[in-house]
């Protein structure tokens, strides 16, 4: 099973995990967006490779969507948004980078430990793909909980979603993959437009209790 096609798929999926780690320690929004674009590019390559080895030409649509929409259009839109919100130079405060990275390593170990024994019956390609995809999903979740800024939370969500698209394309012959990736792109476009329209700079769970009471309409 360890053919060239397997190794190449493995490398691209591993590259996604690596870019997830890159995102974890970026404290500047513009650098974070670059890392996201890189990840989307890798996702596009990984999906295109799956399309080739599974002989599933419809997956090319998903690959093109990943590259055109998520690697080019969304990063451009995000750059414009953070500039217009005046947060493009901002340095984000987050918990210690070392601690976040350690948590990330722990999550990767957890994902491999959970998935590899569970999928012992399936073929090697699918199980490695699912394991690495789960790593990307968990790292995306980790990023969402460690960030304060709405834009970087959304970037965390998009990275999470990259992991899911990777899992969906790795599952051989899954119907509706293209439709699902389109549906996800709509969701993301929605969220990005949402930041812009609503001018959301920070996520709302602040430690300031007064602000909380005001937002929840439960002021005394």
């Amino acid at each position, binding site marked *: 099973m360890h053919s060239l096609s397997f190794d190449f798929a493995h490398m691209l999926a591993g590259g996604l995990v690596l870019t997830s780690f890159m995102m974890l320690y970026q404290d500047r929004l513009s650098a974070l967006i670059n890392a996201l674009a890189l990840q989307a590019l890798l996702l596009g390559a990984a999906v295109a490779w799956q399309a080739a080895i599974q002989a599933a030409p419809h997956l090319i649509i998903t690959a093109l969507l990943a590259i055109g929409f998520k690697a080019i259009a969304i990063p451009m839109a995000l750059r414009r948004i953070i500039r217009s919100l005046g947060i493009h130079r901002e340095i984000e405060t987050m918990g210690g980078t070392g601690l976040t990275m350690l948590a990330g390593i722990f999550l990767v170990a957890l994902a491999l430990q959970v998935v590899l024994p569970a999928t012992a019956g399936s073929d090697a390609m699918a199980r490695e793909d699912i394991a690495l995809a789960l790593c990307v999903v968990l790292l995306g979740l980790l990023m969402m909980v460690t960030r304060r800024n709405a834009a970087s939370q959304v970037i965390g969500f998009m990275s*999470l979603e990259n992991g899911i698209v990777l899992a969906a394309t790795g599952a051989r012959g*899954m119907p509706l993959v293209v439709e699902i990736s389109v549906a996800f792109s709509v969701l993301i476009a929605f969220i990005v437009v949402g930041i812009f329209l609503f001018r959301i700079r920070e996520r709302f769970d602040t430690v300031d209790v007064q602000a909380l009471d005001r937002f929840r309409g439960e002021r005394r």
Partner: protein
Amino acid sequence: MPASAMLQAVLVIPLAAAAILALIPSYRWSAGLTMLASALTLFAASWLVFDRPILDHPGLDHPAPGSLLFVDDLNIVFLVLGAFVGFTSSLFSAGYIAHELRIGRLVARDVRFYHAMLQLMTFGMNLALAANNIGLMWAALELATLATVLMVGLYRTRAAIEAAWKYLILGSVGIALALFGTILVYLAAGDVLGAGGDAMAWTTLLAAAPRFDPHLLTLAFVFLLIGYGTKIGLVPMHAWLPDAHAEGPTPVSAVLSGLLLNVALYALLRFKMILAANPAAIAPGPLMQILGLLSVLFAAFMLYRRRDIKRLFAYSSIEHMGIMVFAFGLAGPLANFAGLLQMVFHSLTKSAIFFTVGHIAQVKGSQRLADIGGLTVTHPLLGWSLVAGVAAIAGLPPFGIFMSEFLLLGATIDRAPILAGVLGLGLLVAFGALLMRLHSLAFGAPRGPAGPITASIVPLAAHLLLMLAAGIWLPPPLVAWLQHVARMLG
């Protein structure tokens, strides 16, 4: 075949109505069309009860090719209940929105948007319920969620935008995790059924479930429970629910509690049936019982600290969804039956309460509990409706919820006495909180403005009378039907 035409009608009517409503600027026409579309959907859904398309047979290995839609004994309950609450909500919505337009809280453009979204959401929910494909169901639920996000943010106040944003982000994460679980189920099924549509169809999944890889199924269920559990509003993934209920227009709150939570519950139930059919995979019951009881207890205690009337009833929804998830987690014919009854009664009662609360908040010009008081004196009709609704939701005897909660407690005492104690505590605490609030809302010295109301009482009365009738006498065919579904759920 007329029956399959009716199945398509349940989907086509709301979708077509959404498209037309997006083009109609006049409020009067669009409110009328919304009511008409909801009535037609209700008619089509009710037709399906008696005349169902036979798309495939449970004994058959292969369903008719390309049948992405199906109706069976389980989802028809959800479809009819949803269509009914959708119809009465559209009646309520007409009066509510007219008032919002009059006081200038909404403009015509918002209302046009709102009506189109309401029908789009109905389409998404019906598609999720009728889908015979786990991927299609997922996409439909996402569509319904997005439509509700837009409606929650309709008022564009700071609080409404916060609520919509929180709902969007939490809902997106939940739905993403649910998709991951869906992919894992497909992988488990693909090893047995082969790649392709069969490995995603409910009809084939359930029959083949005993042969699936149990580890993969276990892993999948964890993701599905967290993912769809977020949409059900289970603690600790509930944070979006009170905000979304409180800040959106009240008809949306009624539809959220009465319909959308049920659809997410339906998705979880289907996957639970697959898990339960595979004895080597993790037992789904205990996980659901834990999350259910946690939701009941947490929501019951949170009820005491509410200061906003819509938030109060949103927490009560969390409590009731917890009861249902606990009941279905306990499983067995009696607990499932109680869970189904609870679901039907909760949908009817909670939407009736939100209809009342909508009118109350419009009269008082405020949603704060402190601004509302003595309703039975100033507005007897609204006041006594609220009394009836809260008595029903708290589980007082003449109403249906008393019966379902009683049945559930009985089943729990039989099977797990310790859990029955916890459940009983949660129910009592919630009961106390609701009655305490009701006392200051409905009785005591009148507070706040006491202007006249232009409430349409029909939807409210219909729900409350149904609840009362159901508490006193349930028609035997309905009982037999629900018992049959309860056995199906295992």
